[in-house]
């Protein structure tokens, strides 16, 4: 299986020159294509820091991250932004849609940044909206959508560039149980049908239950890495 993400001895120290806070303490892991992985752990354990580093939003103090074989530390800022645009889809806790754009335009914006033609981006935006069950809501602005619907648009936006993987930071934190189940079903469906890699940071047991791999962090260290698929494969082995 092709490795999408490889993290090697990632360390992150905040305030290194004053009172150092070790957010990550030399953790290593890899993610294969098609995984549906949850990174879990108590608040302050380093989940968001890890996601920021994997997403190329932040730099590790030490260690190396490679995405599909590309070392992120070798990329200058503009290249890194372009890399994020093409390879990484983001879903944030607070939906983070552009408030002045409609659902369709929010999705199309990503493709416009990639230089995709108008018709192609509109067609794909409509396709993605259908995929997340929001057909008919394309001309609604975020304020006209419920929280769950906004997060589904955010998922569609994350998928717009056909990224190598999607990073979702506490995607269900602001959703009720119905919206959470709905969103998880959609993401799981996309993962199953398209083989899109998803990595979540979450506290939410419902997300953990849906995940096929759960990486548990505590105090900046991986304390367990439970891959249900691999384990099952091991169990099935004669």
């Amino acid at each position, binding site marked *: 299986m092709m490795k999408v993400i490889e993290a090697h001895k990632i360390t992150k120290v905040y305030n290194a020159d004053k009172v150092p806070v070790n957010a990550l303490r030399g953790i290593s892991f890899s993610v294969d294509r098609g995984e549906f992985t949850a990174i879990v752990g108590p608040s302050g354990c380093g989940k968001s820091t890890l996601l920021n580093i994997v*997403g190329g939003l932040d730099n590790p103090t030490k260690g190396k991250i490679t995405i599909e074989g590309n070392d992120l530390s070798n990329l200058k800022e503009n290249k890194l932004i372009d890399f994020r645009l093409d390879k990484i889809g983001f879903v944030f806790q607070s939906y983070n849609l*552009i*408030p*002045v754009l409609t659902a369709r335009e929010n999705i199309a*914006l990503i493709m416009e940044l990639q230089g995709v033609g108008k018709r192609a981006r509109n067609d794909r935006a409509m396709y993605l909206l259908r995929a997340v069950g929001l057909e008919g809501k394309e001309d609604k602005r975020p304020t006209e959508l419920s929280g769950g619907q906004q997060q589904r648009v955010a998922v569609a*936006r994350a998928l717009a*560039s056909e990224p190598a993987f999607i990073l979702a930071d506490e995607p269900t934190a602001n959703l009720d149980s119905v919206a959470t189940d709905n969103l998880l079903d959609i993401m799981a469906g996309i993962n199953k049908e398209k083989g899109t890699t998803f990595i979540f940071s979450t506290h939410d047991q419902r997300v953990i239950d849906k995940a096929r791999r759960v990486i548990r962090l505590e105090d900046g260290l991986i304390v367990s890495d439970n891959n249900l698929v691999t384990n099952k494969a091991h169990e099935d082995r004669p």
Partner: protein
Amino acid sequence: MYLKLAWRNIWRNKRRTIITLMSIAFAVFFASLMQSMQLGTYANMISNSVRFYTGYAQIHKTGYWEERSLDNSFSLPENVEKALMASESIVTIVPRIESFSLVSFGEKAKGAMLIGIDPFKENELTSLKEKLVQGQYLTENGNSLIIGKGLAEYLNVQVGDTLALIGQGYRGMNAVGKYGVGGIIETPIAAFNDQAVYLPLAEAQYYFGMENQITNLALNVNDFTKLDKLKNEVGSQISHNDYEVMTWREMMPELVQQIELDDASGKIILYVLYVIIGFGMFGTILMMARERTYEFGILVAIGMRRRRLKLLSMAEMIILSFGGVALGMSFSFPIMTVLHYNPIYLTGEFAEVYKKFGIEPVLNFSISPVIFFDQAVIILVISLLLGIYPVLHIGRLNTVEAIRS
């Protein structure tokens, strides 16, 4: 989509946008108003002095302006007069005698400025007839005089009374005469009201004993912005040894200085206004940039290059700035036009202060397009310079911190 995004961003907070637009518009309005009032008032000061006294240019016998004596008078050769009248730049040539005499009525006497004029030509330049508040205007061959209102009040004379004049004539002769008051004038220049006495040119020449002589020849011109060109043109037609040509700027350096001084203080006030306006606008821009830190962070995170985000921010500022400037001009011009045609006449203490300085107590407003264009450009530049702040803010943005915010 960027323009659409910029346009919608502008209107996402209508109240803030309206405040920004209005602050830019009022900046244009106030700056234009100040400049319009300044230039309008200067133009009026110049017009009052030039149109009512010196003319835009004058020809004298060489040395007259240094020593304003009747002995420095001259008789204009016919060929020079024809050449001047043939010039396309000159509308009228206005001959005058200017000197001083003692004017007496009953028990009272006062030194007065005695001006001999061609009634018709003088009226073409100075519209003197319009200033008449009592009696009749001068006639070419008449022998009555007209007198300033202030002087008339001082001497307590009415139209029909006879004044005795005594002074020094040409080459030291005595000048003595009795003239009936044909009319009383009131001019915007207080000094003229208190001192001026006008006689028909022929009568003044007779009074001073200087037949066919004049002291100066005022020129009424087509285009007062090209006086230097006119001066050269006239200079080429007359002998430099015998005559001097002077523009109003050379004849009234005090007025030029007064305007320059006022202009300098006006500019300082204008700069202070720009700073106040600038800070007001900066407050709004600062708020806009800070409010959107989170959104900027998200856009960079999902793949928008900072350069694009900066352009987007600049586009918003450009749209806002142009909108504000256009709005400002749209109400500045009509208001200034109304004020131009309906100047504000000062009364009370303000008016007295103006009169003390020999200035007509009126606020005139210029509607020269240059004013609106200049102020619009300056405010636009200020807005665009302030628009650099969001650009710098985006440049310094820490994506992770912005998303956390």
